[in-house]
Each structure stands twice: as structure tokens, then as C-alpha cells.
């Protein structure tokens, strides 16, 4: 362990003194304050904070990712290239320990730099309202919608299999299947029909009522607010691009005639822009003691259109579940997971490739990882005709790719969405304990058995 640490220390020194790390550190130290001063977002304090946290975090994460890739590759390939490795591996240290030491050095450096820059971003975010002389209303708004960590609940998916099957049978009987769904397989047709049915459940014609029920809503504090975040879609766009909505929020089970309400039920009539995320704020006290919450929506006669809540993101309930600081730390841990993965990837590449090739290799993986959703989808659609071959070959490899876009912390911090420790744990397991570990093991095996000297005769 002492030897591993000796190598780690040397690696950190190498990164700092060879100015590899220094360049990135300087760049961040310059860019972050500039960013803090120049971003304006949509002009409001909240917009400004959101833009800053998004840009700041993305920039830090990007530059540290590059730094990690470069340092983890450089520290190994440079030793081989400049042959310091001759005097190191001939000392009583196992090659695997040498690699572990190098990796440890990179990770320690990452942790230190991430702590530093996350600290700077956090400090800037905390000071920004004070610095901008924000009004009390603005402060109230950002307290509720930015300086917080809100849990999100989405309505459970409704089981529509029976209805779908009935519809399918009906279409089949009327020989309409071939007309409408020509060229589709049975499974695909069923899928499309199910989607259609589900959408029907989230659409209200004028006068129609929709009801969503949530269980297990547990706000941190009943005196705080609870938010309904929603997006309207409409069949006919109104001239002012706004639609009316009549909402009833609370424990609707108790609202029988003449009943005494234990918790308030809040009626709201409001007009909102369509196809845009909007939020309704209600006191968290509307949640029943057993964690039950119902949301009723009526499409009022004021509208002349069908109102639809899109399937993926049409409606969700947000409530404060943790503090901003806690969430921020977990966001940083998510970035750290990414950096650890990249450090292992760089170590692997450095163990058998030369510096430029290894850099290229890692950058390709890194960039693929940042658009992994797109990559996975395109592979899936491209491979329709070679399903079996694909499933057993490329698919496994593609699944091994990191999915940085899926676990991007800014998508949580900007809407002040809770990052649970469970989520962090899942990412850490998948990205570090499984994928990164595999890479590391491979690197250890390759490095332990390869010839480190060059052929010179």
C-alpha cells in the first residue's frame, strides 16, 4: 500500500508539474468567474442561477474529463516512452500495484480538483442573490424552485392491455388492420395501439375530467410548497397560444357532500401557455396524512380545444425532499463516477496504446458516451434486420459504453430535482463497480504481461 501511494504521489506531482493539470486548472479558474459574471439566462435571478449551474457544472465536468483522460494516459505512456519504467518496475513493486498507484493518483487529483471547483460553483451560487441585490419575491422564487431538492412523482402507467387487445381484435375483424398498419408486425401494431390508448387517458375534451392519484407523497415540511409541473398539448392551438385549466388539488376522497375536510382541497382556474413547462404552487399541507394526493383536471368550456398531457413529461408532482447542498454534493459524486470511469478507461488505453492513439480511443468512447442515448437508439433501429446477430455481438459492447448523458447531474440541478442516494448508488455500481472495474482488470492483465522494453538491437 505504501508503494502504491508512492506511485500515486508521483503521478500527482507529474500532472501538476508537467503543466498538464495546470492548464486545465488555470482555464477553469479563469472561466468560472467569467461565467458567473456574464450569464444572464432569461434575465430573472432563477434563470441566471440555472444557467450558471448548468454551464459551470458542464464546463467543470468536461474539462476534468479531458484532464482525467490525458493524465491517466500520459502518466503510463510517458513512463514507457521515456523509459522511467525501467527503473520503476525493476524495484520491488508489482506491475499491477504500479498501475493501481497511477490510477489512485489520478483519482485523488480528480477528487481534489472536483472539490475545489464544485466549491467555487457552490460559493458563487450562494452569493449570487446577494451580489445582484435580488428582490424578496425573486428570492422567494429561487428558494422554492432552485435552492432546493425536489422529489418528483409521475403518474403510474395505466394498464391498457385489455383495451388494446379489444381494439386490435375489432380492427382485425373489420379488416382495417392492413389499411392502417400496413407493413407492421403484430407486436408493433399492438405497441402503437397501446400508446394511442394511453394517450386517450391523458386527453380531455372540453368539459371532460381527468384524475391522477399519487400515494407515498412525503414532503420534507408541510409548510413548504408543493409543485405541479405540467405541459399542455392541444389539438387546436388557440390564437394566444394559451389554454385554460380548472384544477382541484388535495385529498379528493374526503370531498363528499357536507364532509368536513381534514386537509385543504385547492381549486384553481388558470390560463397557461401551451407546449411549455408550467408549475402550479400549492401548500404541501394538501397531502393527506397517509401520503395520498389527488389531482383533478377539468377542461373548462372556456377552451375550444382538446387538452392533452403528453405521455413522458405531461405531468409530475414536485415537492421539497432535501436541501440544495445535499443535492449538490450528490451531483458532484455523479461527476466523480464519470471521472473514475474515464480514469480506468485511460489506464486501459495507456497500458497497450501509444499516447496519441490512446487519446483518440478514449475521446471516441467519451463522446459516444455523452450521446449514448442516440447511439443506442440508432444501433437498435439499424439492426432490425440482423436482430439475432446484433443481440449477441454489438449489443453487448454498446451496453458497455458509459451513459454520461443519462446521468448528467445538471438535468437534476437546473429544475432542482432530487438526486437520491439510491440513484447515485445505482450509477456508481453500474459505471464504477461494473464497467470501470472491467476496464481496470483488463488493464492490469495487459500491463502485467506485456514487454515494457523496446526492441533495440
Amino acid at each position, binding site marked *: 500500500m505504501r508503494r502504491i501511494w508512492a506511485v500515486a504521489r508521483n503521478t500527482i*506531482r507529474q500532472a501538476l508539474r508537467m503543466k498538464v493539470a495546470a492548464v486545465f486548472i488555470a482555464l477553469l479558474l479563469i472561466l468560472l468567474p467569467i461565467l458567473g459574471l456574464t450569464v444572464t439566462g432569461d434575465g430573472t435571478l432563477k434563470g441566471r442561477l440555472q444557467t450558471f449551474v448548468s454551464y459551470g457544472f458542464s464546463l467543470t465536468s468536461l474539462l476534468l474529463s479531458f484532464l482525467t483522460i490525458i493524465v491517466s494516459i500520459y502518466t503510463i505512456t510517458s513512463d514507457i516512452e521515456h523509459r522511467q519504467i525501467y527503473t520503476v518496475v525493476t524495484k520491488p513493486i508489482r506491475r499491477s500495484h504500479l498501475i493501481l498507484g497511477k490510477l489512485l493518483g489520478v483519482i485523488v487529483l480528480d477528487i481534489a480538483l472536483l472539490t475545489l471547483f464544485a466549491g467555487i460553483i457552490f460559493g458563487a451560487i450562494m452569493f449570487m442573490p446577494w451580489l445582484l441585490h435580488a428582490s424578496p419575491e425573486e428570492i422567494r422564487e429561487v428558494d422554492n424552485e432552485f435552492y432546493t431538492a425536489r422529489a418528483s412523482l409521475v403518474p403510474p402507467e395505466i394498464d391498457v392491455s385489455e383495451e388494446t387487445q379489444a381494439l386490435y381484435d375489432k380492427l382485425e375483424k373489420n379488416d382495417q388492420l392492413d389499411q392502417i398498419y400496413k407493413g407492421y408486425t403484430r407486436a408493433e401494431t399492438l405497441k402503437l395501439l397501446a400508446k394511442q390508448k394511453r394517450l386517450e387517458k391523458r386527453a380531455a375534451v372540453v368539459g371532460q375530467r381527468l384524475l391522477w392519484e399519487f400515494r407515498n407523497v412525503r414532503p420534507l415540511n408541510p409548510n413548504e410548497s408543493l409543485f405541479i409541473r405540467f405541459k399542455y398539448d392541444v389539438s387546436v392551438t388557440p390564437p394566444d397560444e394559451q389554454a385554460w385549466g380548472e384544477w382541484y388539488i388535495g385529498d379528493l376522497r374526503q370531498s363528499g357532500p357536507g364532509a368536513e375536510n381534514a386537509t385543504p382541497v385547492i381549486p384553481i382556474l388558470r390560463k397557461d401557455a401551451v407546449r411549455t413547462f408550467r408549475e402550479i404552487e400549492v401548500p404541501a399541507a394538501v397531502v393527506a396524512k397517509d401520503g395520498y394526493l389527488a389531482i383533478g383536471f377539468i377542461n373548462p368550456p372556456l377552451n375550444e380545444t382538446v387538452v392533452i398531457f403528453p405521455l413522458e413529461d405531461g405531468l409530475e408532482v414536485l415537492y421539497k425532499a432535501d436541501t440544495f447542498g445535499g443535492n449538490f454534493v450528490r451531483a458532484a459524486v455523479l461527476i466523480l463516477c464519470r471521472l473514475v470511469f474515464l480514469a480506468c478507461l485511460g489506464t486501459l488505453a495507456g497500458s497497450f496504446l501509444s499516447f496519441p492513439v490512446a487519446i483518440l480511443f478514449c475521446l471516441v468512447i467519451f463522446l459516444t458516451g455523452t450521446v449514448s442515448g442516440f447511439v443506442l437508439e440508432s444501433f437498435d433501429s439499424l439492426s432490425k434486420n440482423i436482430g439475432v446477430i446484433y443481440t449477441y455481438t454489438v449489443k453487448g459492447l454498446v451496453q458497455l459504453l458509459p451513459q454520461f448523458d443519462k446521468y448528467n447531474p445538471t438535468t437534476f440541478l437546473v429544475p432542482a430535482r432530487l438526486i437520491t442516494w439510491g440513484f447515485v448508488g445505482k450509477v456508481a455500481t453500474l459505471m464504477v463497480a461494473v464497467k470501470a472495474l472491467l476496464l481496470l482488470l483488463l488493464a492490469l492483465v495487459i500491463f502485467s504481461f506485456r514487454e515494457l522494453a523496446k526492441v533495440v538491437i
Partner: protein
Amino acid sequence: MDYAVETIGLTKVFSDWWGRAKVFAVDDLNLQIRHNEVFGLLGPNGSGKTTTLKMLLGLLHPTKGHALLLGGDGSDPKISAHIGFLPEESYLYRFLNARETLDFYGRLFGLSRDVRQMRIEALLDMVGLKAVASRPVGTYSKGMARRIGLAQALINDPDLLILDEPTTGLDPIGTRQIKDLILRLVERGKTILLCSHLLADVEDVCHRIAILYGGKIQAQGRVKELLQQANKRQITTDAVSESAIERIKHILTQERVTFEISSPLERLETFFIHTVAEAQQQAKPTSGAVSTTRIGDFLTGVEPSQSLLDKLVAAPQQPETAPAAPRTDKVAETELPKGQPRKDLLRELAKPTAPDTKPVAPSPVQPSEDKQVSPEQIKKNVLDALTGRSASEQTKRTEKGDGESRDA
């Protein structure tokens, strides 16, 4: 009998991309280097010397055959803990300074901090880099880099020292120091494998040599036996009178042999060292070995080390190091796995700070250096303990195979 270095049918074939054999860099090499000898591996460029070393140290895998160091695999940490290696060039971390460099290698050996610090100071002193020890080694000249390379090879007090072209880039004084050091280490019971094509160096220090060509041994044996011209005789005398010479000539003519009489030339190396030493003395008649910071790199590098090294060479005459610490380096060897007997070594290393400075009695070998001894006395003793293996200890070891008995 077990050997310090042994290769059995060692072969390295460099093949092309298709796996077809191209060059036999080392071809069925059988080397046996005994404990406590200086063995020279000679050969022209590309004869397979360095490739052999790389295979011994596990940097290259042999195509066929085996390479054994101290009876084991050179890449086994248990073995490499007792090996010092100086590659053909000192490949150093340019961003570390000399002290950090040695500290790093000391840590790789798992040496405790106190042992490390003591050895680093002693070694820096020995190789004459103390004045520039806080400069990054990337800024060092080739000779200075060579010196720090040598220091890193010695930090673990190795039993087997492998030196690849140790004197390239060194000035004559540095070369002399290395040769003296080699002789000194052998006296202390170490084994040295020297790879070189500077024949003069090899001739001066090696007991046995092997000459490689095309990856094969072309000649092998004791230097004296290989070089001795059995059909010639040489007589060297002090200056004698012309009449005496005439008489000798007469006798030789009677014997009917061809002969030649002349004054022998001083070796250029000896002359050079003498001249430089004199120049130094004149420039600083009283300052001694310590005040070296004012002069340039070259001299700064040389001055303190020479005096120290000379004392080092002179040290075998001091009997009291042996009884004082008969088992010291047994302790040093075993400290790595256990981590605990280090105290003994510490005590031993610390000892010379006591006022007992007898060991540095003026050496007859280098009378000109005697004045400079006193400021360096302490360091000399530390270095003795560092490189020191008493003669009695060594004999005991070879008798018993491996001295298992150990002082508490």
C-alpha cells in the same frame, strides 16, 4: 553452487509482424556469475548486452530459456528488493529534484522515512549533487543525471548491482569514482554485473568477463588469464643507475631475448585526476570539501564526492565497523517484509554521529585529500553503514549458505 546471476539457454528472437524470426538478439546464452565478483559483459553495439539485461530484469520476455537473478525471477519483488539497476541512460522523472527522485525510489523499496532520509543525504553527498539537490533533474547535464541514476541504484543497499554503461557521460573523475565504488562494494561482498564497451573501465575492475557478439559468447574467463601474455615478462623498478641498466642489458643479451627499456608512462587518467585535484587545492586552500556552492556544475558535482568516496575506499582498513555491526545488513535485508528490525539499522546508521571519528584515519592512497576529511567524517560513517557489509559477515554467509542466525 548457486550463482548471483545465471542464464540457461537464454534466447531472444525478434520476429516480424507475421511471427517469422528475424534476428537472434541473444542466442542460447549461458552465463554464470558467482556471488561477490565483478563480471563484465562486453561487446560491440548491438551484440545483445542490453537485451540480456532487460531479460534478466523482466523488461523483456525470453523467447526461450531462463534468466535467474539471485536464484529467482528478477521481476519478483522479493528478488528485486536486493537488486540495484542503472540503465544505459538515467531515465529520470524530469519534474522531480534529486532529493525527491531518491525519495521516490526509496519509497518503492518500502524504506522507512528515517532510513530514506539518511541514505538520501549520504548518497547525494557521495555522488556530489548535494548543492544542486533541489533543482529538477530535467535540468541536469548528462553526467549529473548519471550520478543521480547511480544513487538510485544504490538506495536499497543492493546485493547485486547491475550497471549498464555506468561511465558514459561522466568525466574522468566521475569514472574513477565509479570504478572505486565498484571495487569498494565488492570488498563489501556485493556482486556487480557491468555492461560496457569502454574496455579500460572493464579491465580495471572486472574479475571475469564475457565478450558477446551476435548474441553469443565469444570468449569468457578471468581478465588476468585472458590478457596475460605468457611468453613475455615485464620488470618495473625505481629509477636505477645507467650502470645497472647496462648490466641488465648484458644479462639479457646473454639470454638471447629481445627487450626494450624505457620509463613507463603515467596513465592519463591518473594524471588528469592529479591535475584537477591540485587546481582545486590552490583555488581554495582552506575551505575543504563543503564550500562547493560557488563553483559551476561540473566542479560542484565533483568536489565533495571525491573526498567522500576516497574515504569510502579507505574504509576497509577500519576494523571497528565490523565488530560494531556484524549483522547490520542482514537486518537491512529483512526489514522490508517485517518492517520492524529497522531500528537496528537506524541505530547503526545513527551511531557515527558520536564523537568517535577514528575510522577516518588518513588514507595512504589519497594523501592530498586528508585535509578535507574532517567536515565529512560523519557522513562517511553513515555511508559505510549504508554500503557496508563486513567481511566477517560475508564469509559467514557464504559458509552457511544463508545466515539464518540473527541478532535480536
